[in-house]
């Protein structure tokens, strides 16, 4: 049941995280100096730390203002504040969670007729004014100090950029811690009187019910930061004044200092020890602190860049927020107690029941004693101590083991992925190489085929020419035989037709020389490499012998060669024999075969 009622507080925490984280990291993320993920993680961790370790101070004062002693009342008050914040954010009106909560508590005081502690209210309202002023003063001092340091140090802009990046992270962490410490009271402060009376003993440290409540509130703020603050950081960012990175550091630091000052019990005690008045530990609005700091910077820069209309809007928000939250709280309590019969107060002296004010005379005496209830001064019974040392150690070990196993698994998976990637890379590389080789092979094959075709064509041409020479030699022989025949005839029997026959034979023979020349060219062209190889292997061969070799390579018979070279077949045989001797070819080897191998 407690957890159910706590949801309204957690909702308030979520809205606070979503809205106020932008005050801490808005400028840094908006200007892309820091990544949102980085900022969100740091802000979440430090908000929780601040809430758990330093959240008590602000809650103390808030409790004095009006101790919402019934769970139903706390639920309604937190819900009313949450609705007021959410509604005003939707209407794009500047809103402060602190003011909404104070307004809602006063609404509860009005409804239950509990008196509002005026000294606490004065303290709180004073900080609403002093917070921004202090923010402005801090900003002016820090800005001057930073300017002086930068001027003196002459840091290179690029190096300064790196320093600023990390300074923004550190200042942001401090700001988040202060935000958690100061504003956690707004989130779960009203639930403190209803907090479970337990003490968790972890061995190394203990956590009471209030701290657990703060932890839950801190987590809800962290969830708000993680889920919704990015949008706010990106849009709201620098709406009041354009900030550069250095100014952003000053503004965030000044704001963080204000929140820290108003939430640190140790600092307050230190002031008291110096004989100074104690610092009031009050939840102050982080937005107001930021506004004060920005105004401080604006004043130092001559007030040129300050957008007065935005400041006016914020000032209106300061007045409207508590009023709206108080009204919502009052009417919500009315509905809760009358419609759902929810107990909104433990000791009501007088509360609104329908339209009749009901006087509870029995409780009036008790009420006069308890009208100002401090949740931290409750006469609490001994808390139930829950030993969590062993479970905590076991849980820590289990978590550690899970982390180790997860890391191990991640490493293995990464290695596997790397291996797969590498194999895939190799596969792609091999495939590409194979395709490349295939293409090269195809190209060389086609080139080879073309060359072979060319060789074949030229060989055919050579043969054609050779055959034509042979044929023409035959014609010449015929011509010779014909002349011999004519010569043998008696002079008287000579006819004109005999001369015609001779003329035809001569005409056929006319192109013989020309064709022989083109044969020589073809042979040389085709057998260029062959001649080179021949010369390299058998130096000292004469031109005629080389020519004989090239004709033998064409698989021509001795008779055909004799016809081409215009010598007798016998001479060809003799030349072949000499060539064999010159080339040192053994008897069992064939000359034509050796020549073709070249």
């Amino acid at each position, binding site marked *: 049941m407690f957890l159910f009622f706590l949801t309204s507080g957690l909702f308030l925490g979520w809205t606070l995280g979503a809205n106020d984280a932008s005050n801490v990291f808005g400028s840094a993320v908006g*200007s892309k100096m820091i990544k949102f993920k980085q900022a969100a993680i740091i802000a979440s961790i430090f908000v929780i730390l601040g809430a758990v370790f330093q959240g008590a101070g602000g809650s103390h004062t808030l409790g004095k203002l009006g101790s919402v002693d019934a769970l139903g009342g706390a639920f309604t008050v937190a819900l009313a504040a949450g609705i007021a914040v959410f509604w005003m954010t939707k209407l794009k009106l500047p809103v402060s969670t602190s003011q909404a909560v104070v307004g809602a508590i006063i609404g509860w005081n009005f409804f239950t007729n509990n008196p509002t502690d005026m000294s606490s209210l004065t303290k709180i309202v004073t900080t609403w004014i002093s917070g921004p002023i202090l923010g402005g003063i801090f900003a002016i001092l820090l800005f001057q100090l930073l300017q002086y340091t930068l*001027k003196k140090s*002459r*840091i290179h802009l*690029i190096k300064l950029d*790196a320093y600023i990046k990390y300074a923004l992270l550190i200042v942001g962490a401090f700001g988040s811690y202060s935000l958690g410490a100061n504003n956690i009271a707004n989130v779960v402060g009203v639930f403190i009187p209803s907090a479970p009376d337990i003490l968790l003993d972890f061995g190394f440290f203990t956590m009471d019910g209030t701290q657990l409540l703060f932890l839950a509130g801190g987590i809800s703020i962290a969830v708000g930061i993680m889920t919704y603050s990015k949008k706010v950081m990106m849009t709201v960012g620098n709406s009041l004044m354009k900030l*550069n*990175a250095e100014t952003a550091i000053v503004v965030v630091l000044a704001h963080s200092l204000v929140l820290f000052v108003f939430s640190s019990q140790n600092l307050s005690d230190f002031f008291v020890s110096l004989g100074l008045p104690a610092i009031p530990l009050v939840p102050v609005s982080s937005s107001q602190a930021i506004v004060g700091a920005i105004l401080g910077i604006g004043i130092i820069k001559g007030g040129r860049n300050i957008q007065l209309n935005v400041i006016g809007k914020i000032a209106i928000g300061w007045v409207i927020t508590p009023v709206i939250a108080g009204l919502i709280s009052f009417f919500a309590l009315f509905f809760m107690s009358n419609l759902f019969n929810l107990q909104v107060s433990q000791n009501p002296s007088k509360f609104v029941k329908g339209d009749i004010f009901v006087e509870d005379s029995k409780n009036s005496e008790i009420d006069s004693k308890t009208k100002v209830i401090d949740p931290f001064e409750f006469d609490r019974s001994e808390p139930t101590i829950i030993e969590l040392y062993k479970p905590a150690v076991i849980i820590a070990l289990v978590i550690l083991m899970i982390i180790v196993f997860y890391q191990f698994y991640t490493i293995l998976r990464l290695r596997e992925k790397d291996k797969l990637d590498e194999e895939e890379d190799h596969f792609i590389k091999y495939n590409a190489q194979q395709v490349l080789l295939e293409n090269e092979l195809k190209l060389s094959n086609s080139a080879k085929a073309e060359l072979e075709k060319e060789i074949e064509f030229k060989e055919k041409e050579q043969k054609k020419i050779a055959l034509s020479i042979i044929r023409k030699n035959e014609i010449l022989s015929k011509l010779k035989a014909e002349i011999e025949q004519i010569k043998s005839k008696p002079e008287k029997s000579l006819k004109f037709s005999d001369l015609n026959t001779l003329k035809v034979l001569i005409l056929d023979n006319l192109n013989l020389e020309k064709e022989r020349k083109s044969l020589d060219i073809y042979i040389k062209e085709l057998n260029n490499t062959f001649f080179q190889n021949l010369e390299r292997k058998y130096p000292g061969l004469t031109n005629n012998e080389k020519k004989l070799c090239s004709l033998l390579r064409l698989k021509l018979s001795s008779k055909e060669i004799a016809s081409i070279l215009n010598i007798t077949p016998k001479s060809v045989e003799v030349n072949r024999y000499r060539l064999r001797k010159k080339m040192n070819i053994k008897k069992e080897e064939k000359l034509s075969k050796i020549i073709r191998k070249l």
Partner: protein
Amino acid sequence: MINIFKRSKSVAISIDEFFDKVDLGTLNFKKGVNNYIDGNAIEFAQNLNSITVLEQEADTIQRKIGNDFYLHSLMPNYSSDILNLLETVDDIIDMSKDLLSQFDVENPNIPEAIKKDFIELVSASSKSVENVLPAARIFFTQPDNVKDSIQKVLFYHRETHNLSTSLKRKIFQEIDSLILSEKLHLRYFALHIEQVSDVAKDIAHQLSSLVIKIKM
């Protein structure tokens, strides 16, 4: 964390190296033009060689700086302005090298009567560059002091413009020994020398607006 400090340190060193190259390039440019006018061919060739090498080195460093800026998100709000500034500074050495190369290739005929004017023009143009480079350097460490050097740049830019106008007037109105094509040729060289100081003026303006942006 240490990495980003190391990286920013190395980028800062690279920026300094880049300015050194441009600085040396300007000196070579000035010397080169003087050597050409004095007819020292060997020295001129050496100047041309040096400026070519320096220009290539400056280009490489500039590319590296740009790469580092984008890769490591350095100064995200001002990165584009700073890279533009470096690009414009690189234009100085590019233009100077091109101009020396044009002297080498086109071999302009400079009559004795205007040699002195050419030397003065080159000197004024180089001075505007010599003043803008320290301003660009100081911008990275003491942005407040940039405006002191900028005034000098603007002065030398005006001076260059005046010298160039008077030289052009001399070429076209006083020297009759030159034919029109030669006059046009010389005007083209005077114009190019003047343009180097225009780039210096552009850098000065960029620096002024960057200082305002950073101080805002």
